[in-house]
């Protein structure tokens, strides 16, 4: 079993350790999943995400290499920016979803899922010989933490000694120094929070930064709440909303609504793995928008955000029905808490009241929409559910608003 550089911190904080893709990671701290979720939405949550993979791709051919092996347009990334991207299969599914950062002209950082790290590394290296490119796996040398939530920015500003936070707006990156430790920082995250940061720190200085952030008021958050936060934000998790489906068949990437932000057919990008299949999927999805489902065989089922109307909780694997007809299944689902918030952005006030609601993501027939009557089978009962646009509005800073 592997441990991140923060393992002793997790133990000292009372973290409950579980095996996650071969890593000993905290599923929760003594506060528990619900309180950790709420602390992130109201204040700031601190997450150890060092189990994820961090690859440095450099050299004169780095851009061409990334344009061919990834789905997004890496050339659209200016130095100091990041983008969501996919490692596609030739058939238009996903080997993994990833984040690509461009800290300098000929150097890129690719962050991949812990569960896919070895697979991604082997796969990407199989193309490296064709390019003037160097791949370096720095996953165990560089720590990665996420600081997410409305108070994150004030916490960081109170600690910065040198440098500035990235410019406002998602996906910007910069260099800062805290406690004499250099930090590569981005406005990215996996919680749906509009104010969000991820920090990359050489191992030697990482624990000092962790301590400083906790001292400044950030709440430690485990993998349990990381999952409920991303689910509330309708963010996909590889292996659930992407990759293989419940029957072990490849899911077309465009089944996932976020795919359209991660795939580019720009001329500059040229050919890339999976392009032909992905173009067909993109065309089919565009037709669906006009109510034309004549090519529905290409992406038969799509991921929809749902909420439960009747009492009960939908879980991954629960069957979804429209009338008597089975139309798909729940890919992720649980009960998620929220703060009752008064006022409108940006002048909102958190009350001390909280609620919770059962929500989920479902892979269901692409023709279904918010007016469709659907039910989820929970044990032996059919529970009424509804397709919704979202369960969280996280575009406008400083607060992500629950949709209830």
């Amino acid at each position, binding site marked *: 079993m592997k441990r991140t550089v923060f393992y002793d911190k997790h133990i000292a904080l009372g973290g409950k350790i579980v095996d996650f893709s071969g890593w000993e990671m905290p*599923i*929760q701290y003594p506060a528990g999943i*619900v309180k950790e979720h709420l602390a992130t939405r109201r204040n700031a949550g601190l997450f150890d995400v060092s189990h994820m993979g961090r690859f440095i791709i450099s050299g004169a051919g780095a851009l061409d290499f990334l344009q061919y092996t990834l789905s997004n347009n890496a050339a659209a990334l200016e130095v100091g920016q990041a983008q969501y991207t996919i490692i596609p299969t030739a058939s238009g599914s996903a080997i993994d979803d990833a984040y690509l950062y461009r800290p300098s002209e000929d150097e890129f950082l690719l962050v991949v899922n812990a569960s896919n790290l070895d697979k991604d590394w082997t796969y990407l290296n199989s193309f490296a010989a064709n390019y003037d490119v160097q791949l370096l796996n720095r996953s165990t040398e560089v720590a990665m933490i996420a600081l997410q939530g409305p108070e994150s920015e004030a916490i960081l500003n109170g600690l910065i000694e040198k440098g500035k936070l990235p410019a406002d707006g998602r996906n910007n990156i910069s260099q800062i120094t805290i406690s004499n430790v250099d930090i590569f920082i981005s406005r990215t995250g996996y919680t749906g929070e509009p104010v969000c940061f991820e920090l990359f720190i050489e191992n030697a200085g990482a624990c000092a930064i962790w301590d400083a952030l906790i001292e400044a008021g950030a709440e430690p958050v485990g993998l*349990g709440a990381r999952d409920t936060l991303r689910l509330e934000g309708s963010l996909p998790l590889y292996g659930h909303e992407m990759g293989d489906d419940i029957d072990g068949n490849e899911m077309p990437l465009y089944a996932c609504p976020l795919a359209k932000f991660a795939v580019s057919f720009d001329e500059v990008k040229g050919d890339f793995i999976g392009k032909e299949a992905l173009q067909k999927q993109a065309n089919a999805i565009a037709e669906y928008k006009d109510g034309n489902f004549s090519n529905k065989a290409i992406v038969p089922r799509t991921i929809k955000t749902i909420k439960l109307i009747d009492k009960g909780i939908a879980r991954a694997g629960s069957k979804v029905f429209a009338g008597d007809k089975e139309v798909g299944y729940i890919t992720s689902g*649980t*009960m*998620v*808490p929220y703060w009752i918030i008064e006022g409108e952005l940006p002048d909102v006030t958190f009350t001390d009241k909280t609620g*919770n609601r059962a929500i989920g993501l479902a892979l269901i027939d692409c023709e279904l929409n918010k007016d469709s009557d659907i039910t989820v089978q929970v*044990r032996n009962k059919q529970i009424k559910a509804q397709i919704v646009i979202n369960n969280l509005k996280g575009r406008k800073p400083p607060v992500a608003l629950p949709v209830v």
Partner: protein
Amino acid sequence: MAEQGLKYTESHEWAKIEGNIATIGLTDFAIEHLGDIVYLELPEAGDDVTAGTAFGTVESVKAASDLNSPLSGKVTEINEELPDNLETLQNSPFAGGWLVKIELSDASEASKLMDCDVYEEYLKNQD
């Protein structure tokens, strides 16, 4: 810590038997292991329950777990306010967090349940 005078199941329910009526609940061990409880589904008064089979469900953020009846009989009363006051279940599993009361159909089933000391010994072998 489990309480003396109650009977226990391997699936961490307790039963307090008073005459022909048993009050059923979940142990503090179960509560701690479930984590945050977010949903509780209880039967209705008048429902029949059978020893060792599910009469309801308790759900945490991570998972759903069956509530198994320690004894057989008919539900006479449920803790109606509990599903909307789950903190009572978390904070007071042996008192205010009781789940249902049942009228026993076979009082001899109680002899198959664990006493407090046996249950505490049993817990030592749980993770």
